[in-house]
């Protein structure tokens, strides 16, 4: 991967002490963290007007987690209603609004924006950029998303309540006569606004990744998270405008009397389904890819291995991105108006690059020296959960089975495993991983263990039994069901699982409060991690980096830690370091001995002795 030939007498540097086997810690290079400003605003006005990518990243995290709490609360109403047959908790009318907004909040206002939060906060740090390419556009996107989300929720206050037609809003039900009421219009407006926000953010992400990488950070040295965010951004550019266009037509049907989707006047309801799912299925991967990226950052660090099959992973991501735009009609197998075998093939094929990812994650751990800090626990939990959702996905990709399972609780179980559970579990893996970077503080490992096990038990209990319900014929989106054999029991187990899920958030919230009250003593690189964000202080300084290590692979911090050793890090790091001689102190903070005075045999070490772990 490098153009520099390694000569037998490759020069060896000795950094940070006389011991040639010494591992260089980032803290010793850049000094203690928390000495300078964090770039985060301290006043309300500061937060409202900021254009700093880290501040907006934090704002994205907070906003999307708030929407997660709201969506989770709505899910509680659904579970309460389904605990027993008949209608007890809410009316049909309210129930329909609740599941519509639950789905819309979770998809549009929680899952996608959290990925944008990662793109805001983590991505520029990973490529050594000082900010996103267009900071004001970024602030505009964020506020468009938050205000748009508020519009959706205020639909509940509208006359007739919020939108009652499901998150995919099939016309004619979503049309003017199917769902009169301002709430439905507010839903459409909200999705248009958040969709526009997403499109603008995607432009910003692509511009940043293509133009603002630090020298040496070639495309094939970018961390997988950054790669996945790049592919996600391209997918957003292709499909979000389609959704916005479809929604504008729907709005025009409702407001101006056009007939795009009105069957009685030559319009076509199926057109909406095509347009919506052309957006809707790539959307699943737009949600998932950033979180695949998160766990790909975590597995190698805690297994002390490089990410296995780096290029294969990138290729798999690109393949998923491309394939995902030609699978949409598997949501429409049961319409009888699409060529089922074509879409069955593309939908099944997408399992292959996804499988490659799973194997690469396992390969990254295989042969490693694994420790189980909180991020790793959640990442492994993600892996196992994701495979369950993956295999049911292959089942649904077969129209033969989909004719039975479509629109049943089996589908509900499937997409909560792939979109709900894995996203939430990987999200917490990411939170535990980057919390020290963002706040400069650690989270309690003991509370994290409680959080992890309660979350896993609660999640699986909630959603596993839905497979059985669906297989037996319980349809989606019903507030009421027949008390057939075990349906009541399974629904009660699911509700109990939901309660456990809810309880699992308690240790997390306690840990957050405790951590924020404690001292900021995490240091720059608490996990001995790999990518560039760990080469700056925690929290990072105003424009992210005062100093950047040489980049010769996708894990510059690892290479730098092992710079005193030949044969461990990527080749060329020591040479690049030597080449900095003569530059000012900013580039060579460890001015100490930079010399080729150590014999090669002393450090042909793959047997490290000190700081690992």
């Amino acid at each position, binding site marked *: *991967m*490098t*153009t520099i030939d390694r000569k037998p007498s490759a020069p060896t540097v000795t950094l940070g002490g006389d011991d040639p086997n010494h591992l260089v810690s980032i803290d010793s290079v850049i000094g203690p963290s928390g000495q300078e400003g964090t770039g985060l605003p301290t006043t309300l006005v*500061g937060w*409202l*007007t*900021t*254009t*700093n990518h880290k501040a907006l990243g934090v704002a994205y995290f907070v906003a999307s987690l708030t929407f997660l709490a709201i969506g989770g609360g709505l899910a509680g109403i659904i579970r309460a209603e389904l605990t027993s047959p008949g209608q007890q908790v809410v009316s049909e009318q309210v129930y329909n609004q609740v599941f519509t907004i639950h789905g819309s909040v979770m998809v549009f206002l929680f899952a996608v924006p959290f990925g944008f939060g990662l793109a805001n906060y983590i991505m520029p740090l990973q490529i050594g950029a*000082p*900010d996103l390419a267009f*900071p*004001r*556009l*970024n*602030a*505009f996107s*964020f*506020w*468009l998303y938050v205000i748009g989300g508020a*519009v959706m929720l205020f639909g509940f206050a509208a006359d007739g309540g919020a939108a009652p037609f499901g998150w995919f809003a099939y016309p004619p039900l979503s049309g003017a006569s199917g769902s009169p009421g*301002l709430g439905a*219009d*507010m839903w*459409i*407006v909200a999705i*248009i*606004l958040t969709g*526009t926000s997403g499109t603008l953010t995607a432009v910003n992400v692509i511009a940043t990744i*293509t133009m603002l*990488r*630090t*020298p*040496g*950070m*070639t*495309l094939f040295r970018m961390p997988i998270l950054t790669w996945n965010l790049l592919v996600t951004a*391209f997918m957003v*550019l*292709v499909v979000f405008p389609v959704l916005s266009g479809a929604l504008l037509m729907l*709005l025009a049907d*409702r*407001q101006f009397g056009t007939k795009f989707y009105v069957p009685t006047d030559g319009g076509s309801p199926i057109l909406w389904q*095509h*347009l919506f799912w052309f957006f809707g299925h790539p959307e699943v991967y737009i949600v998932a890819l950033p979180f695949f990226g998160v766990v790909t950052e975590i597995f190698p660090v805690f297994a002390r291995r490089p990410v296995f099959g780096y290029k294969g992973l990138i290729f798999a991501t690109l393949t998923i991105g491309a394939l995902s*735009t*030609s699978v949409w*009609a598997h949501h429409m197998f049961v319409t009888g*108006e*699409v*060529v089922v075998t*074509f879409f069955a093939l593309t939908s099944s094929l997408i399992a292959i690059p996804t499988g490659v990812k799973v194997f690469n994650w396992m390969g990254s751990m295989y042969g490693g020296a694994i420790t189980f800090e909180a991020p790793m626990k959640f990442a492994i939990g993600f892996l196992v959960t994701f495979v369950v959702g993956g295999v049911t996905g292959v089942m649904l990709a077969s129209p033969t089975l989909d004719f039975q399972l479509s629109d049943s609780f089996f589908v509900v179980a499937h997409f909560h495993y792939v979109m709900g559970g894995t996203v939430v579990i990987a999200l917490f893996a990411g939170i535990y991983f980057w919390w020290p970077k963002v706040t400069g503080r650690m989270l309690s490992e003991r509370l994290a263990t409680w959080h992890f096990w309660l979350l896993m038990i609660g999640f699986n209990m909630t959603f596993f039994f839905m497979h059985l319900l669906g297989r037996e014929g319980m349809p989606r989106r019903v507030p009421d069901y027949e008390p057939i054999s075990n349906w009541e029991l399974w629904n009660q187990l699911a509700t109990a699982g939901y309660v456990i899920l809810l309880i699992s958030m308690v240790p997390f919230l306690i840990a957050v409060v405790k951590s924020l009250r404690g001292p900021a003593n995490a240091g720059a690189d608490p996990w001995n991690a790999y990518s560039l964000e760990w080469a700056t202080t925690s929290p990072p300084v105003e*424009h992210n980096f005062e100093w*950047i290590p*040489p*980049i010769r692979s996708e894990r510059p911090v690892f290479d730098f830690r092992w710079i005193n050793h030949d044969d461990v890090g990527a080749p*060329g790091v020591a040479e*690049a370091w030597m080449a*900095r001689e003569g530059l000012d102190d900013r*580039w060579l903070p460890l001015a100490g001995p930079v010399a080729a005075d150590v014999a090669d045999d002393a450090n042909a070490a793959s047997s490290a002795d000190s700081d690992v772990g």
Partner: protein
Amino acid sequence: MYFLAIGLIYLAVGGDPAGIVALLMASGLGGLIAGFAWHFGRRYGTRVEDLQDSDAPDATGVVGVYPTASLRPIALAFGTTLLVLGVPIGSWMSMIGAAIVASQVLLLVHDTDD
């Protein structure tokens, strides 16, 4: 192009009209993005970021100037929301929204000139 190929295959297996149109349109969208990337790749040539053996000091001095905090983005977002929300609620709201958007865009341009 991926979409073009898929679209033609789907045409060949006799898909429904909407599916074919969507896929071919998508090939257009994809082509637009790819063409843009290709064009700019040519215009800029190889940049220092893409060299295998470059190091951070090679590009010192191009860090760039970053905008200060600004009230414009949130105001613009609010105005845009009113503008669109006015479609179902009433044109008075759209007009307020349009006024906010117009004024904020002007101010934003003015800010940037400073």
